[in-house]
């Protein structure tokens, strides 16, 4: 087939760590695809993984990925479907080892290769980088990282397509990375397939748009969708997105036949604006895409054509995602019933705050919300009606001192017998104290990371 008429199908199977476990299986079994991309990482995910790795050195990646591959590995090998994922988290090496073992258990020994991408993890290099004059200043406040470097739990650069393209070129069938940019899991394979040059900004930008649409799974095929959501069919069997991309960068968003959900101009447009900043300046490691150039044509039958995308040259920097310990928090809840449910909840909140005060406890913040009334739209909703049937009182506290937060968790249940009446919903026990991982976005010169990227291909 000539390159002009050739189409590469990239299916999305996971939009975050914790997404529908059956979705990747449906994608592999539901019809022809060329690639399966699985995005497991979000801003806070890396710090959670770092903590897991601190407790146990073989952990630190998306564990769900390994049993998933054990299930779908034979089918992927048979059909030539290649898998690209950032499931490696802060331990891509450990993930790749577990994957090789899963491949052997699945019976694909000698028939598949695993690609491993490392070098995005800057945790062990921070002191050296700072000593070498890299400030890693906070992108919003401008503060240098040295002010909190002792508290850092994880630090990873968002890396681009190059190592994915290299691994595919070396014949890897399943590629495991750490903090690959979400969109690169889609546009990396496209650069490999079509040989787009680094300065072919428009086509790579089109690949970025395809990646942005793919990266949140069913959020572009009817999930979390406001447009006539009550009419979207068969969401129990929702089809995850597939992008069918041509060499010129135009593509069609669709899903497998026979699956539920919906692909329309509106469902795709909603996903395009998700987590967007300046639409003319969508920065990735390989290109800057202009989302105001996207054109959508609804072709009907769950097919939307995307074309016209423009892009510009990449910047000299990579973004670094840093998580650091920043104190402790806990959230407690109690449910108050009619009559005067909201009045009772507010009285209980006042009593609770007075008790915390009498104990001499200090918090950086105490926040009270009434679930069932104002916990989503805040002051926009005004005062609750006197006859509201029930509300859940939700009180959260945050402090540098763990002991203060611990004590707070012991002050919720007593309100049942020592506060306003008709209260229930405390059966879950004391609230859990959680460590706060604050987010520190920074920029670093790309060479600092790129010189350390390694691609390794192993036989199963």
């Amino acid at each position: 087939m000539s390159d002009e008429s050739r189409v590469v199908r990239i299916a999305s199977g996971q939009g975050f760590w914790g997404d529908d476990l059956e979705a990747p299986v449906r994608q592999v079994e539901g019809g022809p695809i060329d690639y399966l991309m699985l995005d497991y990482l979000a801003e806070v995910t890396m710090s959670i993984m770092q903590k897991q790795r601190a407790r146990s050195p073989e952990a630190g990646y998306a564990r769900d990925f390994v049993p998933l591959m054990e299930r779908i590995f034979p089918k992927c090998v048979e059909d030539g479907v290649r898998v690209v994922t950032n499931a490696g988290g802060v331990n891509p090496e450990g993930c790749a080892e577990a994957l090789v073992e899963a491949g052997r258990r699945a019976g694909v020994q000698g028939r598949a290769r695993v690609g491993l991408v490392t070098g995005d993890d800057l945790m062990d290099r921070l002191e050296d980088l700072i000593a070498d004059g890299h400030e890693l200043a906070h992108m919003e406040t401008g503060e240098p990282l040295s002010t909190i470097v002792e508290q850092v739990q994880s630090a990873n650069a968002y890396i681009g397509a190059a190592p994915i393209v290299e691994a595919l070129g070396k014949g890897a069938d399943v590629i495991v990375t750490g903090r690959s940019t979400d969109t690169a899991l889609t546009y990396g394979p496209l650069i490999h397939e079509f040989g787009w040059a680094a300065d072919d900004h428009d086509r790579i930008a089109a690949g970025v748009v395809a990646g942005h649409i793919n990266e949140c799974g069913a959020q572009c095929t009817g999930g979390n969708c406001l447009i006539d959501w009550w009419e979207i069919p068969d969401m129990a069997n929702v089809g995850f997105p597939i992008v069918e991309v041509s060499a010129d960068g135009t593509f069609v968003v669709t899903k497998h036949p026979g699956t539920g959900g919906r692909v329309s101009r509106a469902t795709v447009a909603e996903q395009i604006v998700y987590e967007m900043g300046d639409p003319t300046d969508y920065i990735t490691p390989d290109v800057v895409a202009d989302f105001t150039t996207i054109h959508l044509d609804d072709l009907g039958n769950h097919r939307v054509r995307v074309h016209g995308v423009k892009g510009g040259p990449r910047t000299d920097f990579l973004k670094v995602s840093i998580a650091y310990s920043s104190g402790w928090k806990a959230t407690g809840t109690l449910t108050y019933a009619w009559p005067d449910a909201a009045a009772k909840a507010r009285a209980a909140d006042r009593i609770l705050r007075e008790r915390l005060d009498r104990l001499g406890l200090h918090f950086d913040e105490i926040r009270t919300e009434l679930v069932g009334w104002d916990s989503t739209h805040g002051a926009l909703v005004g005062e609750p009606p006197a006859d509201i049937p029930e509300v859940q009182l939700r009180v959260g506290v945050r402090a540098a001192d763990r002991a203060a937060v611990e004590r707070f968790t012991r002050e919720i249940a007593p309100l049942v017998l020592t506060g306003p009446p008709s209260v229930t919903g405390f059966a879950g026990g004391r609230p859990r104290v959680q460590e706060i991982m604050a987010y520190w976005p920074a920029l670093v010169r790309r060479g600092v990371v790129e010189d350390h990227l390694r691609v390794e291909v192993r036989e199963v």
Partner: protein
Amino acid sequence: MTKVQLVHLAHARSGDKGDTANVGVIAYDEAHYCLLREQLTPEAVKAHFGEMVKGDVERFELPNLSALNFLLYGALGGGGTMSLMNDAQGKVFSTGLLRMEIDVPADVAEAVKGRGRVPEGWSPGGEG
């Protein structure tokens, strides 16, 4: 002119970047995009959210999608795992904005009546 709640004219999706929430608002009907553009100014959106947004509101236009994108700075109680909010990741600021009322010609108000809301008598179906 008649006051109409935005929920009848547009759909929306929101998300987070640190302590900033974004809300993308998309007109159901391309013809209504100019109404949104005129009236959903950053100042009007900032006034609508009041104390819920500590910092500025910035607006970007996407005429290609009949959409506006708003960045609400300091809206998420510190963002990420720092926030004590139920909606720490700003997932429902979208419908918070759709509560806003704007002025539209009377015929538009009539045409969009009921749009964006579950029809009366609807049920999720299935057994039980």
